[in-house]
Each structure stands twice: as C-alpha cells, then as structure tokens.
C-alpha cells in the first residue's frame, strides 16, 4: 500500500487536520514506509482472528469513513442561556 496525496488529504479531513501540500507529500512517503513495515504482520502466516475474537474488540459495525457536518447554529439555539454568538455557562473553578 502506497499512500497517495489524496489518501492523506482524506484521512486528514477525517481526523480534523489540514496539512500543507508539502506536509501531505512528506506524510504520504513516511507513512507508506511505516505501513510497508506494519504489513509484515499480515504476511506472518499467523491465522486471522476468529469472528468471536474480533467481536470482543468491536461489538458493532463501523460507520462509513466520511465527515459528518453538524448544524452548529441549530445546536447553539438549544442552549439555555446565550450572549451573542456565545453560550453562557456557569462559572467553573
């Protein structure tokens, strides 16, 4: 697996990062090498995890890997107290 610039851009969006084009090129190259090393575990000949073992790790289906945007104004309108664009919260110590 060789990461492309588009792969890095997509993954960065999912994890809320915005690397520069130069960073994306660097990360793609570096992470491709890391993944090539990591892939030795897939070539180890050790049996793949059984369904039961896998279910114990993640007992639910993973959602699609895409960015979900929220309607921020709709959320803030539900706050009990607001001041302009800000939500008023109780003082904390």
């Amino acid at each position, binding site marked *: 697996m060789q990461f492309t610039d588009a792969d890095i851009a997509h993954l960065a969006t999912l994890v809320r990062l915005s690397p520069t084009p130069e960073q994306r090129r660097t990360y793609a190259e570096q992470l491709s090498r*890391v993944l090539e090393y990591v892939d030795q575990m*897939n070539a180890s000949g050790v049996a793949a*995890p059984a369904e039961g073992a896998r279910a114990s790790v993640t007992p639910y289906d993973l959602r699609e890997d895409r960015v979900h945007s929220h309607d921020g104004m709709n959320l803030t309108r539900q706050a009990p107290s607001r001041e302009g664009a800000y939500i008023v919260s109780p003082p904390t110590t």
Partner: protein
Amino acid sequence: MDVKEYSIQQLHAAYASGALSVEAVTSAYVDSVANQEPTLQAFLHILGEQAIARADALDQRLRAGEEPSALFGVPLAIKDNLCLAGTPTTAASNVLAPYVASYTATAVQRLLDAGAVLLGKTNLDEFAMGSSTENSAFQKTRNPWDPKRVPGGSSGGSAVAVAARQSLVAVGSDTGGSIRQPASFCGVVGMKPTYGRVSRNGLIALSSSLDQVGPFARSVADALAVFNALVGADPHDATTIASDPVPPSVLTEGLASLRVGYVDDGALQGMDDEVQARVQEALRLIERAGAVLVPVRIPLARLSLALYYVIVTSEVSSNLSRYDGIRYGQVPGARAASGETFEQYTTRVRSAGLGAEAQRRSILGTYTLSKGYADKYYHRAHALMRAVAEDFDAAFANIDVLFGPTSPSVAFPLGEKFNDPLTMYLSDIFTVPANIANLPAISVPIGFAHQLPVGGQFIGPRFGESTLFRAAAGYEAESGFVQLSPASNALHA
C-alpha cells in the same frame, strides 16, 4: 562525598543521624538543576522554591519526631505528562501549552504521600510519541554523556535528570520502551511495571491499553523504593489491581539458581556489534554468578513492533481527538473567527497545536481504524497481540526471567533519525515486546560501547516483579556498574 551521590538508604541514615537536612540535600539538587539546564534542557517546569519550602516542612516534621516514610526527603522529578494540581502540564505539546492541571495524578500523589520532594517536571516527546525527546514542542534535551546526542525517549528528561544528578529519582511513562530505552542511553536504571500495577489516573493518555508509569533511579534498590510507593489499586483507574510491595530482601538474594532465558533465534541481528558484545559479556557474568542460562525461542516476538504501531496509532487517533480547542487544548489566540464552523475551528486548532509525529500517528491510526481496513490492521493486531503474549508465556514455563539488550544501539546524534520515523521506531524493537505481552521489564547499565552507556534488559513473567528486581539487583551487585556518572571520565576508558 557529594550528597547527590547518596542512595535513598544513605540519605535516610544521614537524616536520622542529623548529619544532613532535607533542605541541604534539596538545595544541592536545585542548584544542580539550575547549573546544568542551559546545556541539558531536561526540565520543562522547575519547582525550586516549592521544593525548598517542602524540604523545610519535612525537616520540621523530622525534628518533631516523625518516623520517616519510604521516600522521605527524596528529590524527585516527574515527566510532564503527569498532572500536578496548580502546575502546567503540557505533555510537551503546543496544544496544551496554557493548560494548568486541576488535580494531581494518583501516581504523583502517592510519591508525595511517601515523602518525596518534587523538583520539577521533565521534557518528553510530544504526548510521549518518540524515542529521542526531539519531538517536544518546546526544547531538545541533551544526553549528559555527550550533549550532541539524544537522551532517548520519550521520557528523556527524566532519564537525564537522574543521570546528571539533577534529581535522585524520577518517574516516566512506558508505552513501548519510553522508560527503558532512555535509561539505557543515559546509563541509569529504568523499569516498566506490569500493566495494572500503577494507576494511570492523571497520566495524559497516549495508548490507554499499554501506557504504564514507572521509576528511574541510579540503583535497583532506589528503583524498587519508588516502585513500591507507586503500586496499588486505585478507584480512579479500573485497570489497577491490589499489589503487595516487593520485599527489599529480594535485592540480596542474588542470581544463584535463577533460570535466565536468552533469545536464540537470530532476533539480535541488526544490532551494533559493540552493544551485542556487552550483552554477551553480561550473559557470561550472569552465568558466573550461578544462574542457569537457558536458550529460548519466542518466534512471534519479532512481530511486536509492527502490531504495536497499529494499536498505538489507532488509540492515538482516538485519544487525541479530544484536543479540539473546546473540550481540551487550545492554541494561544486561536479564538473562533466569525462565521467559522466547528469543523473549521477544530481543524485550525489541531493543525497548529499538534506536531508532526502526533499528526502522522493520528492519520495512520484513522486509516487502521477505518471501515475498510480495521479487519486487516486493528483487529488482526489485537489477535496477534494475544498470540505474542502466549509465546512469551510458553517461554516463561521454563525460565524465571529473560535477558537481552534494551536497545540495538547507543545514543544516536541529535537529528540523525528525526526525519525518518520508521528508523526511529526501530530503536524500540527490543523494548516493545514486553508492552505487547504485558510483562514487567527493567533496564540496567551493563557497560559502555563507543564510550556511551549500554543497557541490558531483564523481562519477567506477568506480575513477577519480585523475580525481576531480584535478577536486576543480582546483576548490578556482580557487575559493579552502580551509579555511573557522566562526570567521571575514568568510566569512558
């Protein structure tokens, strides 16, 4: 004799006889920190005034007839990913630069309750991601044996503080070798307990299923004193278990009749020749001391580093998602611009606040956890993790402890591996298996290569810290490499 060369036991004897005060000892260490920081840069936060005030209070308690506790008047440094109430706790990240902890980590509180005097908080790789302490957002810590070289990481500041006599003992965190590898590079003792021994409450998470807090010291006995103060169940960390302290009597039981395993399957290939020679010499010394050497094969251990980087990056991508500039973390001046969406704001804060290694690991972890690849990477790594642990368990059916190198090389020059993450990761190839198999391990000095310290690593069975400390202390007593000092040129010969 310089008071900074005293062991905990020697300090306590001097306190009891009135030959030394806690204030005098603390002042000597505070001065040592101040004098060496311009070169070493081991500390992110120096707490000199608080330390002197604490020392005065302890002296008053001593004069009032109080019985000294286990770490009474012992100068201590802690890694800056452990929370201390009212004190900056940055994990060496810009995203936490303005953060002041509102509570104290259980591990730190236990050390303070045992009487330790806290000198300051030490530098680390950002969020403990790294093997050289070069990933700190704030400064690059130098190795006291050669300031042009790295101290190892990620707990490099703590290792340097102990090696350079800036502190008597220190604590760090070890997820894949972050205590043992810098201990090896700096010529001190560094120990990772079995996962569950020490509370992670108040430890800023890197990889929650692997992180563990442990001690640095200049002798195995001092490391044991700190370990015993750290361990025990904590209602704030459900993964902890009740633990009896390891009795100090194990320190004098010696190596005789211990069955010491060593890996005999070619896994040592790629090591520096001189480092390998020191390991072989250490094995011969262990045998001369009466231990039985047992060749063992742990074939799946070679996969540990590969699956480690799947599990760690997956957990990093999750753990670091909290630094969104709202719930946790901020960059000074990064207030939401008018009309900026939540996604735009958090992306801007995270991109400015997280360093390159944190970004790389977050991106890779997002990939290994993604719907299309989680089976191939994350789930498979977890299955293999269990298989590696079973491989070690089979080996421990025939041995008491395992011995081998801590790192394949000595401390490397600053910058040499900084832009090559994979090569940097490979410096942890001998420490990671103990984390993956959840075994306790300790690095002790075993000599020099290229005029730099070399560490050897004992690995014990799960919750077998008594045997581990016995073996390490037995080796230490036989070898004479106790309390090596970077200031002693004779040791370079």
